[in-house]
């Protein structure tokens, strides 16, 4: 059996995970120093721009130890955002150990802690690593201390590296070999391989990333996906070395890819177990669950004619994103569109951006909503994720909304502001712990609906960037809800409705009307914006009409300038949706959710 080590790097955002991974790739000789300019594993534009990893990636690194023995180190790069925590858990389940990266200048952050818990849950060997030691502001003793106090690990044993300069990296590679245990040799048992990711290849269909725990799999084998019971014929197996490198087989302990004529990634399930059809494993690997969307929003083409083109784009996009759900939706104001479900707001933004950039769609999205649960007078229960389907208020016996348990870590000087923020968002059941002098961990139960929109931005803002945030869904709790409608020039715009906590309805309506006033451009006529619950108007604002819009002088030299300005304005108009007589920009549909805290 080959000498294999499977590991992952876990880190808070911006703690240098991708840079360190790139450094490993370069030291393994897969790329030259010269090619190292761009981060290798973050393939999507959005990933590079935002500095986060969205898709899991793996790379198989050949490594020769100082004693001359050859190893294969499988690095499984995990998504770096709370929206994708299930994928993270499956990637971690595929490893024997992790490098827990701590930025020498920033210390331990909330996500570091969350990741540590995840790693502990999988019984992984944890190597603490202090990264970015080349920074002038690096505070290594403090990082060590936090590793001890916040994480309960041996800070004095932490490796010190700089992914950027490469300092300490050879030592770290050797530490991986020495400290992370090799996988168990179970190659004689029936095949059990864990799917931890899949991506779509236009020519080959779904390319599954998997970790083989038991048995072997080769091209020609008939495999079965245990959750669906469907069988496929394996066409190719191999490992990723930035590109696919075919192998004769994947055996217990290996991490690699598998292509089996599976048409789309939606036919695969992250967390599912692959076995052989002829000699199936007795049971799937533990931990499988369906990924469920928690945030919902409707998506409409800006121009109604583009509905079919959007449908087509969504279908193509979905080939590569099993987590997105969508179904037809229609709005009196916006026409035909789709109701989509997302793992979280980041996921939503990613889908929106990729549809716009990669599929060239001009779209607007309505304010994101969570799933509410209503028990009606006749005892039936309905789940609503779209304000348009809000039940008749008279028929509601009980309303419930989803809650999360939030964990916030921040320097303690921001505690007052953080408490206020959480209480404003209807937080309850708070719990405060001091992790180390000056650093506090605050926990709160919060309605998910209060968190999805701008909670994270607000949190960053009140803590001047030092606060960090993680959450898990806990349960549904009874609540007093109502639907807030928005009327534009007397017409109810269904796509602007939001479900709100009744006690805050008027305050929310006032803010929404003011925000919309800022977002909706002036026209030649007055535009009234009203907030209403049922038939009752509870807030109002007015967009004043243009009185004058003309340049005083337009002679020879002014014509070109004027035309160019007009062409630019025209482009902006194309991004707006005409509702009745009023042009509403995309930003307005999300603005109704904005709070007045800033």
């Amino acid at each position, binding site marked *: 059996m080959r000498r294999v080590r499977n590991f992952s790097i876990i880190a808070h955002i911006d703690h240098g995970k991708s840079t360190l991974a790139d450094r490993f790739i370069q030291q393994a000789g897969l790329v030259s120093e010269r090619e190292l300019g761009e981060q290798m594993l973050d393939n999507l534009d959005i990933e590079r721009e935002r500095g986060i990893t969205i898709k899991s990636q793996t790379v198989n690194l050949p490594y020769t130890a100082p004693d001359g023995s050859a190893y294969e180190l499988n690095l499984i790069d995990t998504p770096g955002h709370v929206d994708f925590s299930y994928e993270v858990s499956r990637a971690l389940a595929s490893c024997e150990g992790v490098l827990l990266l701590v930025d020498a200048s920033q210390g331990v952050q909330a996500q570091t802690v969350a990741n540590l818990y995840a790693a502990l849950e999988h019984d992984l060997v944890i190597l603490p690593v202090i990264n970015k030691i080349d920074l002038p502001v690096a505070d290594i003793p403090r990082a060590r201390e936090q590793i001890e106090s916040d994480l309960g690990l041996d800070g004095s044993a932490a490796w010190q590296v700089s992914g950027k300069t490469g300092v300490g990296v050879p030592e770290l590679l050797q530490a991986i070999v020495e400290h992370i245990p090799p996988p168990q040799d179970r190659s004689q048992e029936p095949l059990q391989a864990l799917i931890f990711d899949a991506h779509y290849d236009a020519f080959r269909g779904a390319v599954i990333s998997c970790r083989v725990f038991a048995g072997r799999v080769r091209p020609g084998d008939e495999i079965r996906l245990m959750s669906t019971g469907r069988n496929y014929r394996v066409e190719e197996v191999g490992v990723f070395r930035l590109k696919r490198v075919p192998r004769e087989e994947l055996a217990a302990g290996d991490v690699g890819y598998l292509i089996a004529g599976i048409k789309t990634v939606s036919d695969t399930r992250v967390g599912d177990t692959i076995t052989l059809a002829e000699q199936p494993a007795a049971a799937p690997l533990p931990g499988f669950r369906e990924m469920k969307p928690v945030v919902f929003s409707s998506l409409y083409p800006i121009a109604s004619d583009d509905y079919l083109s959007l449908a087509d784009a969504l279908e193509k996009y979905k080939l590569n994103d099993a987590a997105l759900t969508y179904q037809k939706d229609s709005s009196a104001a916006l026409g035909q569109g789709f109701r989509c479900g997302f793992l979280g707001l980041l996921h939503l933004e990613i889908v929106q951006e990729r549809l716009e950039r990669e599929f060239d769609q001009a779209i607007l999205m309505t304010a994101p909503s969570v799933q509410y649960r209503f028990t009606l007078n006749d005892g039936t229960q309905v789940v609503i994720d779209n304000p348009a389907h809000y039940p008749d208020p008279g028929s509601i016996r009980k309303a419930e909304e989803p809650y999360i348990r939030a964990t916030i870590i921040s320097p303690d000087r921001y505690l007052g502001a953080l408490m206020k923020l959480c209480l404003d968002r209807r937080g309850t059941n708070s719990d405060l712990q001091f992790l180390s002098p000056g650093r506090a961990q605050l926990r709160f139960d919060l309605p998910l609906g209060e968190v999805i929109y701008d909670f994270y931005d607000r949190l960053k803002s009140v803590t001047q960037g030092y606060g960090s945030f993680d959450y898990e869904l806990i349960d549904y709790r009874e609540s007093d809800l109502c639907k807030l409608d928005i009327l534009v020039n007397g017409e109810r715009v269904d796509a602007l409705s939001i479900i709100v906590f009744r006690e805050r309805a008027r305050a929310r309506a006032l803010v929404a009307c003011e925000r919309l006033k800022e977002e909706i451009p002036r026209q*030649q*006529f007055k535009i009234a914006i009203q907030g209403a619950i049922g038939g009752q108007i509870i807030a109002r604002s007015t967009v004043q009409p243009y*009185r004058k819009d003309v340049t005083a*002088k337009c002679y*020879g030299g002014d*014509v070109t300038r*004027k*035309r160019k300005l*007009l062409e630019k304005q025209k482009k902006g108009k194309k991004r707006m949706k005409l509702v009745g007589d009023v042009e509403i920009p995309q930003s307005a549909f999300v603005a109704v959710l904005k709070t007045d805290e800033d």
Partner: protein
Amino acid sequence: MPRHLATRSAAEPTEPARPTPPSSATAQADSRADCGLYVHVPFCASKCPYCAFASEVRSDLMEAWAGAVLREAAAQAGRWGGFDTLYLGGGTPSLLPPRLLERLLSGLRRVFRFATDCETTLEANPGDVDRERIGAWRASGINRLSLGIQSFSDPELEFLGRRHDAQRARRALDLAREAGFRNLGLDLVYGWRGQDEDTLCGTLAEVVRFGPEHVSCYQLTIEEGTPFFIRNKSRPLLASEEEQANRFLLLSEVLGAGGFEHYEVSNFARGAHFRSRHNQKYWARVPTLGLGPAAHSFDGSRRAWNVRSLEGYLRSLGEGGTGREGEEALDERQARTERILLGLRTCDGVRLDVLSASAREKALSKFVPQLLLRVRAGRLCPTPRGMLLADRLALELCE
């Protein structure tokens, strides 16, 4: 004040309400006799604090400038059929020594063909007008003066940083009439914060009483790179939009009652005959050639612009260059956008068939009932309120 920069363009009717040939029949500059010639005179005795036009406070380069303009003219000679307007704008053309002006004009006449009734305009600062000079202007063929009066109120003239006072302005007008100018235009500026409405009305009353053939009323605009731009940052200089709109409508009514036709956003004439023949070419997209620094040209399909700075312009022509800095060929869509945005500035509007079907529908079902536009002889024409929103309407109707 400088404005008109030259161009060449497609043929479109200068007389608006008349049916016009389809745009494909537009003629290029070299085959028409009604092109306009603009000469930019980039010299001022002092810079007004609101003006961003290309001009310099120096006189030592006037000779060099005139030579360069004539060289540029010679290089353009074959490309332009004939001109029926010549406009000397600036800057301050009235600063030119009369002998130099005479030399420039006769030089241009040697190079280009001009119609016998060519409208020949000189922009003049009231402070430069005296009997001797004005006689020289007439003698050299200037038949229209555009006087930068701005206001008949001394405090307002001081606010605007002008070097003349109201008395001087009145005298300039009288001298012009005395010298036999039968086509006189004057410029006014209005619309700053705190401008007294009675004072503005006083100026308008005096304008009506004097009875020029043409009045341009410019809403004060804050231009980047001017002293007003800097002052505006700490304290807003412009009146509110509401107030500006009301002033605009007031002007339109007062001058209308005084016998002036409001024929373009900022321009009024005592009957169609006295509209600025030259400036109408810009709005109707008739070819115009612009000579001098920063001047623009339009030959019917391309727009071109000259180097903006005087030194750069002189250098270019001194080295055998064209003085041009850039040019742009217009495609059909851009040409249509221009027709709409320029047409909607004038009372003659834009031909209905220039608009797309949906834009036409929008205009007829929305903007006509809102009294912003009206239909006359197959054209969509803005009302004064429509003119106030001309840029907005153009945006709505360019599809």
